[in-house]
């Protein structure tokens, strides 16, 4: 039978999604469902004096209006999922404002009514009296602010320091050093489907069922169980189709407590569907950071040391993944280079803005931008070709596995497991035409300055030590595969059926893939850190093997000759040399007669070696100096993600991530005014990439490597496309505008900002 792994198999989920038969959370309807809408603070910072809901309660169709007092006396904070910075626990958020509001968008009250229209009618009738407090809007003022956001914390900051080697000694002796400051702007994931939940309370069984779970349903189940004071078994998280996640969707948010709690309180199903403005205000933001970074080199370009500090504005509260971008930025600052001496202080600051969380490439996008800009500047100072300087510092293949030290506090020492960064870099140079285009680097052609930028990267994946899979033989002989790794558009149903089909030597159509709700699988860590192909994929493979053993044993029993070997072929078992076969349907019937069911769960464990992918982004831009407009003429990501399970889908991930990254560099910007109001809370104000913006994007996977730490040999493929785009574009724009003295130190590169950089450099 033909192997499915590695083939560009068309997606199975498309048959459903293309015909409008997907089942996203707002498509689910439970009889008697009520609708919730949330009153969000219009103030960035203030003390709540009173909330009057009496007029709202009189509004037609309103079932109830709820404020903090209605959610129990001990309203708990939502826990950190990953820590890593001591002291941030003091900034945890309660699901609804109690005495203060700390950002515009924070939930203050919930209206529940018979329809969403009626609930929205009542919303403006709630009267909230708030004493204004001065807002803290950036990390610099968070330091000096007279106003503490969290009085009990006594401070607006927290920090941690990490290092490897001896950076200060390296700098003391270095013949060349340079220090620079960089800044990356606030932007975020913005999936096309906003968040949403439907919760139903079963009074007889004392069970709450929640539809709309994604990313980490099993983890969120335990948080919700704890906050509602229920046993975990009394909380069922139902997985649905999901309209994009990118890290932001699916974390435990305030609504993930408020809506199920109200369904129990009201004994009626309650649905909440976020609107787009709410999403901009309430779902996690990301990326906003500053960095002071210093490089030490030999005169031949050998990097001797790197040291610095990063400053992340985490918004008003620390949320589940709020420390990930800051801590990972430190880990990824040295990048794919042999920089022996490195030190970094990671500082986070609270501000009266929307809290941050992880967004595709968290910390990597930021770190790669900071470092790669500084390397270009150093190469220019030293009179070196920036490509040659990078190449000579990349970790060579022979040095693998390469120890990168203990740079994230909640992890042990980490290694690059494998990879040929130099080969990937050379291929990117060829693809972009580095040598051929040297003649136009920084030159004006027909009114446009041309520039080519490079940014090599390393990228980790597959965190979380285990993933389960479950295979069930159905009554008719069909096979159901349950995976815990939720699907937010990656094509899990296709990839996992490819793996399972190969393992069972069956056609893909014989296997139905179900992204498991919490009542369908024993456990799952979830979908993040580009971990599904590696962790869930290997779990499927292992479980396939166990399932085959189980049905082989059953077949031997069925044939009444347990010690005679049976042959598995074309979806049936054959006794040696005999034409009569035993089908899966026969076995299912046989098992049922014995009161059994073939239902196999197995687990893939990976405690140690996490796969690091690698690659290089190369970008050719043209810049109009009169308008500041940047055109992307060519943009390539060359990556090695180990074994490519499905090239159609892997390229889809890379291209999508690249355009998303280009949007982040050139269009998208979450901007606040001096009162802490988000000015860009709609698609009219927050510009997303459209089909006309970035037509020249290419992705290439070099099939050089197999991850040594897992049987499939795969590495994560979901984020490499985005991680160094900002770095490469910023280098390309700087190269283009070098004759005008422009060095990009701040993003985004919108026309007005590029124009201003040109004007400032000329002044």
């Amino acid at each position, binding site marked *: 039978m033909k192997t499915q792994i590695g083939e560009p198999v068309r997606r199975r989920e498309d048959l459903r999604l293309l015909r*409008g038969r*997907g089942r996203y959370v707002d498509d689910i309807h439970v009889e008697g469902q009520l609708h919730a809408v949330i009153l969000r603070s219009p103030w960035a910072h203030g003390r709540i004096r009173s909330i009057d809901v009496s007029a709202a309660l009189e509004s037609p169709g309103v079932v109830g209006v709820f404020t903090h007092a209605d959610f129990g006396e001990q309203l708990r904070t939502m826990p950190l999922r990953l820590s890593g910075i001591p002291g941030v626990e003091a900034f945890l958020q309660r699901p609804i404002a109690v005495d203060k509001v700390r950002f515009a968008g924070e939930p203050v009250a919930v209206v529940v009514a018979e329809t969403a229209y009626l609930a929205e009618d009542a919303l403006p009738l709630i009267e909230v009296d708030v004493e204004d407090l001065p807002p803290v809007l950036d990390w610099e003022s968070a330091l000096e602010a007279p106003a503490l956001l969290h009085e009990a914390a006594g401070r607006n900051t927290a920090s941690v320091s990490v290092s490897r080697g001896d950076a200060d000694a390296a700098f003391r002796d270095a013949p060349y050093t340079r220090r620079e400051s960089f800044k990356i702007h606030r932007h975020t994931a913005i999936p*096309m489907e906003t968040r949403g939940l439907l919760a139903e309370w079963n009074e007889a069984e004392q069970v709450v069922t929640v539809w709309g779970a994604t990313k980490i349903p099993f983890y969120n189940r335990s948080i919700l169980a704890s906050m509602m004071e229920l046993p975990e078994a009394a909380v069922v998280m139902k997985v649905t189709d999901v309209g*994009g996640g990118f890290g932001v969707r699916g974390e435990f948010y305030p609504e993930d407590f408020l809506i199920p709690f109200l369904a129990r309180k009201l004994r009626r199903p309650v649905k909440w569907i976020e609107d787009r403005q709410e999403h901009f205000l309430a779902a996690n933001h990301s990326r906003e950071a500053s960095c002071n970074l210093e490089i030490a080199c030999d005169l031949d370009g050998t990097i001797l040391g790197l040291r610095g500090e990063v400053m992340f504005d985490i918004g008003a509260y620390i949320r589940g993944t709020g420390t990930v971008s800051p801590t990972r930025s430190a880990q990824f600052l040295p990048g794919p280079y042999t920089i022996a001496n490195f030190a970094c202080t990671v500082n986070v600051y609270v501000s009266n803005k929307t809290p941050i969380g992880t967004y595709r490439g968290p910390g990597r996008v930021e770190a790669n931008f900071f470092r790669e800009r500084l390397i270009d500047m150093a190469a220019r100072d030293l009179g070196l070709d920036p490509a040659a300087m990078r190449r000579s510092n990349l970790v060579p293949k022979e040095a693998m596995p390469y120890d990168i030290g203990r740079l994230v506090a909640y992890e042990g020492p980490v290694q690059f497991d494998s990879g040929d960064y130099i080969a990937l870099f050379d291929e990117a140079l060829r693809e972009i035409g580095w040598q051929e285009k040297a003649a136009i680097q920084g030159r004006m052609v027909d009114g446009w300055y041309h520039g080519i930028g490079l940014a090599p990267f390393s990228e980790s994946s597959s965190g979380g030590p285990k993933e389960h899979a479950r295979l069930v033989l159905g009554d008719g002989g069909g096979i159901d595969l349950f995976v815990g790794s939720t699907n937010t558009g990656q094509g899990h149903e296709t990839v996992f059926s490819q793996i399972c089909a190969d393992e069972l030597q069956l056609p893909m159509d014989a296997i139905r893939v179900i992204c498991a709700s919490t009542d369908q699988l024993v456990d799952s860590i979830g979908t993040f850190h580009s971990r599904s192909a590696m962790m869930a994929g290997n779990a499927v493979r292992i479980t396939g093997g166990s399932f085959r053993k189980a049905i082989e044993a059953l077949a031997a029993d069925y044939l009444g000759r347990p010690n005679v070997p049976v042959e598995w072929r074309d979806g049936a078992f054959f006794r040696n040399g005999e034409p009569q076969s035993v089908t899966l349907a026969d076995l299912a019937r046989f098992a049922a007669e014995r009161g059994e069911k073939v239902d196999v769960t197995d687990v893939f464990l990976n405690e140690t070696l996490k796969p690091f992918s690698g690659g290089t982004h190369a970008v050719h831009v043209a810049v109009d100096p009169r308008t500041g407009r940047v055109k992307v003429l060519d943009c390539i990501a060359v990556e090695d993600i180990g074994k490519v399970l499905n090239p159609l889908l892997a390229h889809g991930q890379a291209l999508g991530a690249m355009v998303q990254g280009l949007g982040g560099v050139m269009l998208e910007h979450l901007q606040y005014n001096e009162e802490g109001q988000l000015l860009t809370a709609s698609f*009219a104000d927050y510009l997303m990439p459209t089909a*006309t913006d970035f037509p020249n994007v290419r992705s290439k996977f070099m099939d050089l490597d197999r991850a040594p730490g897992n049987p499939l040999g795969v590495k994560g493929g979901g984020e490499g496309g985005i991680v160094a785009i900002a770095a490469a574009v910023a280098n390309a724009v700087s190269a283009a505008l070098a004759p005008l003295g422009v060095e990009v130190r701040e993003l985004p590169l919108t026309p007005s900002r590029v124009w201003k950089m040109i004007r400032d450099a000329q002044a």
Partner: protein
Amino acid sequence: MTVHRLECVVNGEPVSAEIEARLTLSDFLRHDLRLTGTHIGCEHGVCGACTVILDGQAVRSCLMFAVQASGRSIRTVEGLADGEALSPLQQAFQDHHALQCGFCTAGILTTAHAFLSQEPSPSEERVREVISGNICRCTGYLNIVEAIMAASSHYGGRHEDADR
């Protein structure tokens, strides 16, 4: 709240309903008719996820009241395929991996179908221009453009098909 009578045709079937004037066409399709293939991404006409075909024209169903569809013929994503088989445009989307999460897809399919029915031989640039009114966050659009170009051969000269 005054109730209005709405009579229209949805995917070839006559529909009549008593509705409030303020009910949007997108909410009517999704929640009253349970045609949930039409999605809502922004409710202010920018993202294009809710696009349906109204008498042959691609329109944003979040920007119309349902009562405005009185006497009109509406085609949603559920009405694009003939039976269980994918339409040539849908098939091209699968072949070219032109969707990931699938949330924007209904709006892009309806936009492209109405467009190709009127302009069956577009340039790639023209396709990009037409679908630049639909936001997709997953694909980066490259495969979407390829799919629409590939499907265009199936529309040659069949202008009358726009609202079949």
